[in-house]
């Protein structure tokens, strides 16, 4: 998985984009040594029982409510700044 992430980040970052990862709620375990190699700097926490961030920080928090608004099924997300004062980078007009 680390190799997957490293390559994914390399390609996306190499193109000039800011790679981020959505952290879902599945719970298979892997070697704890690998966790320090996770290459992302932008984290988005899924709804559900995802652990709170202790060191890096999530920049976006999802709340799953099976909500439909204006005919569209959505999950709500809220922006945060992480522990380094960084936030997500969006495109806006």
């Amino acid at each position, binding site marked *: 998985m680390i190799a*997957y992430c490293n390559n994914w980040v390399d*390609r996306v970052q*190499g*193109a000039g984009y800011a790679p981020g990862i959505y952290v*879902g709620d599945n719970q298979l375990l892997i070697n704890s040594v690998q966790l320090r190699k996770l290459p992302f700097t932008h984290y988005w926490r899924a709804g559900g029982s995802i652990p709170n961030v202790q060191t890096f920080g999530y920049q976006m928090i999802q709340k799953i409510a099976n909500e439909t608004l204006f005919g569209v099924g*959505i999950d709500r997300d809220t922006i945060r700044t992480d522990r380094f004062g960084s936030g*997500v980078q*969006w495109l806006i007009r």
Partner: protein
Amino acid sequence: MSLRSKLFGGDPKLEAAAVSDPAHITIGAKGEHVRKIQLALTLLDDANIDLDGAYGPETAAAVLDYKKKRNIINRSYQTQADDIVGKMTIASLDREMHQRERVPRPPIRIVPKSNWVMGSQRNPTLFTLARRSGSLALNASAIGTAPRFGQINLNIEPKELRLLPGTTGLITVEDGAPGTVQVIGDPFINAPPIVHLSDGLITSVGLQVVDNRQTFRVIAGPVAGTTMIVASLAIPDPDNPPPVAIEVTVLGNILRGRIQSAPAGSLGFDTDQPINLDVAKKFARQNFKFCLRYLSFGPHQGTGDLTTKEANQILDGGLALMPVQHPRNPWWVATAALGASDGDNAVKNARSVGFSPGVNVWVDLEGPGEITAIVARHFH
């Protein structure tokens, strides 16, 4: 029956559709043959559809519209037009395309769909095709800067180019290798491409075609990370070349806007359903500030994934936007090779929609589960 237009002729799926009822092309079809149909509908019927190679509802509606206008109805079993490209429709499209290709055209212009973003905005890309001293020459000039990322601020994305009436040849733009200038079809190219760079700025890309072969292709990328131009130009009749100069202005589908660090506390949503302008405005009025929409992990955006048109509507509706790549099925296996290809496709699809560098592109790794454990441990 053999299709006669240069656009359709020789395409196995279109040739099959021209002679076989079961080979008809209908909603759900994908591929280059669909893109050719979309291009024909755009050129012949001014259809306002994405040239994405996906036969979705919009393409189906354009087909139906085309058939209604021409009263294309198979009276043996139907009383009104449908949205399927069968034998009668392909014959009609091919006939009109063939006629269109045979008519000499005045100089053409490809109209930009959006403006540059970031950096200085100067001239658009300019292609000129001229017959000079017995040779055909293609010169492309492109100017742009993107000081923030050290890249030339010029992305020409392929799928959004649209040829307006007056086209002399068919010009398509495809993905190409970044940071390089290549010529494909070298048997009839006797000189390497000429690239002039000035202070990180490509000022011109040129090549010469020494005989009257019908097609050539140039791929030009300005600097690492940004594909600039990949153009393939087919000249319908090399012995009767087009007017002295064809001027084509090409602009990509870069989404207009600015990359911004999102303010803390902003409320948004993610959804796998397309958002139109009206819905985007409604969300904005409810104090939603942004939206996340999906990119495919495949090489092309799929049905229901984010398109340029939708992205513009979301942004025009007052919402900020970020892309996220779809999760795979629950039991996929993460490998290094897959990470590279998924990353490449995330980039390709983000570019095809028109995202500028700098924006967050998210990956959704819900499936294998390991990642959650990684992050959980990391954060603890």
